[in-house]
């Protein structure tokens, strides 16, 4: 038996399409001159909707759809004519269906308050049809073609007349066409498969996880490759050593063998090869090392293949990710269509004539962005109608067309979608803004703000609202809210205006939210990212002389310390911080952070539902090694009514760990020490020579150095000397770990500044003592 809820799910999937089709059709019906095709299509869709709604026992939906079908049928048979009343009624009915299906999709009952009203309206229209036809019927009973020819006389266009003239064949034609369409839709299942958006979302999430794991593997593999190189290298050294040894000893013939083996006593030294224990041992050793060399070669070639495969997997995952993201892309035109009706309604309310033009509807954007663009766009469009476009009389006075135009356009620019809302209204009066800003104390008498700077003021939260209450001509109701919504999808909102001619709002959003290029940086111990499209430039701040502002490209811009906003204690002092210059709608601002790590491609996930209210973030990412990084939203940081309540807790084990650097050319010493220290919960860095060690010291925070004396490239004494003569590093305690037990060696090391001197072989106890002494007295 078919599961009912499953059936319902399919219906909901299907219904969405039908509703969209109906919506498009109805809005076209209003505008288009070629109506008959549209009516046919609408009839077909409502018929299907009726059927499938009945199948899942959604009776009200089915009934409304049925009524729609009746009206459309009447239209199709020319029993009634298209007029604005009918169009309005149809969209009214569609609204009802939408509400019903919305309820059902949320698991509620199929219930509609306005149901009676809808039915009434539909019946009224249909009644009219009947009365009309009855009139005609009395005139020309049983003669439909007579009725039609009557209409031909009225009709002015010859073309339509012709169509109707051949009425019977035409109707047959239509029904044939309908059959054909039905047939096609029945058999056309080839190239497309419908997928629940949630499924794609899930797949993207999985891909995200795969990517994270893959990155981690790549990172780890690199370490393994290094180790394997090292093993191979030391292995070779060992083999050579053994070979030499074996060569020297394989054929030596000590005297004693001669006497032991009587059987061979008659052979001379060069006449028969004889072996003693040493010879045998050395031969055995040689065999083993040869085996080992063979295995090492195999291991090495495995790692090569492994590395190659990992790389090709890497690129395949990238392609897969791109394809999946693509499959979630939607034509923005569908979104634009949704504004047709509201524009009509609101324009009517304001007694204005407005036409909506749509350009670039085929631009594809991520479904997530698609959904979240609706309300900001709605806001902008409503503003344009109520404040931008003038009334018809004024427009005519100004030599403009009586009908105002709002243009919605979309285009792709690199990884960004640029969406513009332009109205040909009166533009934004910057004079008024200036006066208002002055009145509110946002500007001083001496300030000579540029046009651009004045426009920026409409984004200030308190300002914009008061403008709207004071001046009906003002624009900018909730402009700060709009900007915040756009920022939520990592977008930027810009505005430009020409007084008396037009106003344009430009939204730049990434095409996809799933994969983004981000800048990775640190503030205190936590890492954060900012989407790259917000970033203008990253500067090193040698000195931040003027706290609060900075001169940037000849303009003063505001800078803030991120750690102060977030309430994070920072590590470094102000001398070597970075300033990230961000683009926050037209204006630029600077963010001071501790350390900039680099750029990377990452998967940004929407904010966790529990933390959604933290508006300074627009999402999260997880790094390859499993670190959480929050995605900062620069727009909201700088618009901060935000008061931090940060507390950073201390089972942040990783950052609290003290770290040890071990410098030794022997891999086994390094491995042993690393394992040992890690088991005691320390972070361990290791280096095989002095220079490598020194580099790590400059790069990472290290609390203790343990070094050998005889190490390649830079020997231990020099390393100690360098550390102790560096102002930055001199406080780090150094422990020497060497096989040289002589006093001379010890004294030199201590003289250079080493704190302790351990002689190999060392044991755990002595290492523990060192840890206790220099790092943590409480270690067991």
């Amino acid at each position, binding site marked *: 038996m078919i599961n009912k809820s499953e059936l319902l799910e399919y219906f909901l999937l299907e219904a969405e399409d039908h509703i969209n089709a109906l919506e498009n059709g109805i809005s076209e019906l209003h505008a288009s001159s070629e109506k008959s095709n549209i009516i046919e299509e609408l009839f077909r869709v409502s018929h299907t909707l009726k059927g499938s709604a009945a199948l899942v026992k959604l009776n009200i939906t089915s009934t409304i759809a049925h009524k729609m079908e009746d009206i459309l049928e009447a239209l199709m048979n020319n029993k009634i004519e298209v007029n604005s009343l009918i169009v309005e009624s149809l969209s009214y009915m569609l609204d009802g269906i939408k509400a019903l299906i919305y309820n059902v999709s949320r698991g509620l009952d199929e219930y509609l308050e306005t149901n009676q009203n809808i039915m009434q309206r539909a019946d009224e229209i249909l009644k009219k049809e009947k009365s009309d036809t009855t009139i005609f019927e009395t005139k020309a009973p049983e003669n439909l073609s007579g009725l039609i020819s009557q209409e031909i006389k009225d009709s002015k266009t010859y073309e339509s007349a012709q169509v109707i003239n051949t009425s019977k064949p035409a109707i047959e034609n239509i029904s044939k066409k309908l059959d054909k369409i039905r047939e096609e839709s029945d058999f056309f299942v080839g190239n497309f498969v419908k997928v629940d958006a949630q499924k794609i979302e899930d797949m993207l999430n999985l891909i995200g996880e795969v990517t994270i794991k893959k990155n981690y593997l790549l990172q780890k593999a690199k370490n393994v490759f290094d180790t394997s190189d090292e093993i191979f290298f030391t292995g070779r050294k060992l083999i050579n050593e053994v070979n030499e040894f074996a060569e020297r000893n394989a054929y030596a013939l000590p005297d004693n063998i001669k006497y032991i083996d009587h059987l061979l006593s008659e052979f001379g030294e060069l006449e028969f090869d004889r072996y003693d224990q040493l010879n045998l041992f050395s031969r055995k050793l040689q065999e083993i090392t040869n085996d080992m060399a063979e295995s090492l070669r195999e291991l090495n070639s495995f790692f090569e293949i492994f590395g190659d495969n990992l790389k090709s997997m890497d690129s395949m995952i990238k392609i897969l990710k791109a394809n999946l993201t693509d499959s979630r892309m939607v034509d923005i035109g569908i979104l634009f269509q949704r504004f047709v009706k509201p524009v009509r309604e609101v324009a009517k309310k304001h007694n204005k004539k407005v036409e909506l033009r749509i350009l670039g509807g085929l631009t594809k954007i991520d479904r997530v962005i698609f959904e979240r663009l609706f309300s900001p766009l709605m806001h902008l469009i409503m503003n344009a109608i109520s404040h931008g476009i003038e009334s018809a009389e004024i427009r005519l006075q100004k030599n403009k067309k009586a009908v105002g135009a709002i243009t919605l356009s979309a285009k792709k620019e690199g990884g960004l979608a640029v969406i513009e809302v332009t109205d040909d209204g009166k533009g934004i009066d910057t004079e008024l803004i200036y006066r208002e800003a002055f009145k509110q104390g946002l500007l001083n008498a001496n300030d000579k703000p540029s046009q651009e700077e004045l426009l920026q003021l409409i984004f200030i939260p308190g300002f914009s609202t008061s403008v709207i209450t004071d001046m009906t001509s003002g624009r900018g109701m909730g402009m700060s809210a709009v900007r915040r919504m756009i920022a939520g999808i990592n977008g930027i909102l810009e505005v430009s205006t020409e007084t008396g001619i037009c106003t344009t709002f430009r939204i730049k959003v990434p095409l996809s939210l799933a994969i983004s290029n981000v800048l990775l940086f640190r503030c205190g111990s936590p890492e954060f990212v900012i989407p790259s499209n917000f970033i203008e430039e990253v500067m090193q701040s040698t000195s931040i002389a003027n706290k609060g502002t900075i001169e940037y490209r000849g303009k003063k811009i505001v800078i803030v310390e991120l750690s102060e906003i977030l309430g994070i204690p920072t590590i470094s002092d102000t001398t070597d911080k970075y300033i990230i210059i961000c683009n926050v709608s037209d204006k630029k601002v600077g963010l001071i952070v501790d350390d900039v790590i680099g750029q990377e491609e990452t998967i940004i996930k929407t904010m966790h539902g529990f933390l*959604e209210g933290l508006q300074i973030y627009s999402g999260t990412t997880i790094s390859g090694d499993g670190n959480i990084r929050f995605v900062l939203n620069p727009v909201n940081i700088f618009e901060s009514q935000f008061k931090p309540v940060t507390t950073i807790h201390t089972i*942040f084990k990783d950052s609290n760990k003290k770290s040890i650097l071990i410098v030794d050319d022997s891999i086994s010493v390094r491995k042993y020490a690393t394992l040992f220290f890690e088991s005691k919960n320390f972070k361990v860095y290791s280096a095989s020579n002095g220079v490598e060690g020194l580099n790590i010291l400059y790069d990472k925070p290290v609390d203790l150095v343990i070094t050998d004396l005889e190490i390649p490239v830079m020997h231990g004494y020099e390393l100690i000397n360098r550390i102790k003569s560096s102002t930055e590093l001199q406080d780090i305690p150094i422990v020497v770990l060497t096989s040289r037990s002589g006093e001379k060696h010890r004294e030199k090391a201590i003289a250079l500044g080493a704190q302790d001197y351990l002689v190999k072989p060392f044991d755990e106890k002595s290492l523990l003592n060192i840890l206790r002494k220099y790092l943590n007295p409480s270690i067991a």
Partner: protein
Amino acid sequence: MSKDDETKEISYCVFRVGEKEFLLPTSVIREVIDIVKIFPVPGSPEYVYGAIPVRGKIVPAIDLSKIYPIETPIYNDAKLIIVDIKNENIGFLSEIAPFFVSFDPEIVIEDVIDIKTFFETYSIKQPR
């Protein structure tokens, strides 16, 4: 008591913060994990102890001692009890490995966290 009655008992997960024990219906629990690494959520209220990545998803870790009057707990060996709520996961810190108990549905049990109400009350709201 017959066997049928037993099956009707409701199972709870008991965990501890400071001196106080809390209960969660077993049905909402997804898993219990050891905490290895916890990340701060700068800007969040005190009761959000941090966030933990679990299989590619982020789970906020809640410290109930900042909501109820409890002495400061020691979370050195803390467990995180992860629950399902509204297609998301949140976690409660516990000082002990939680254990499970069952009660007759007739018995009124205190200190049960109603996870839905909790989410609605304590999820971070947008500033007005």
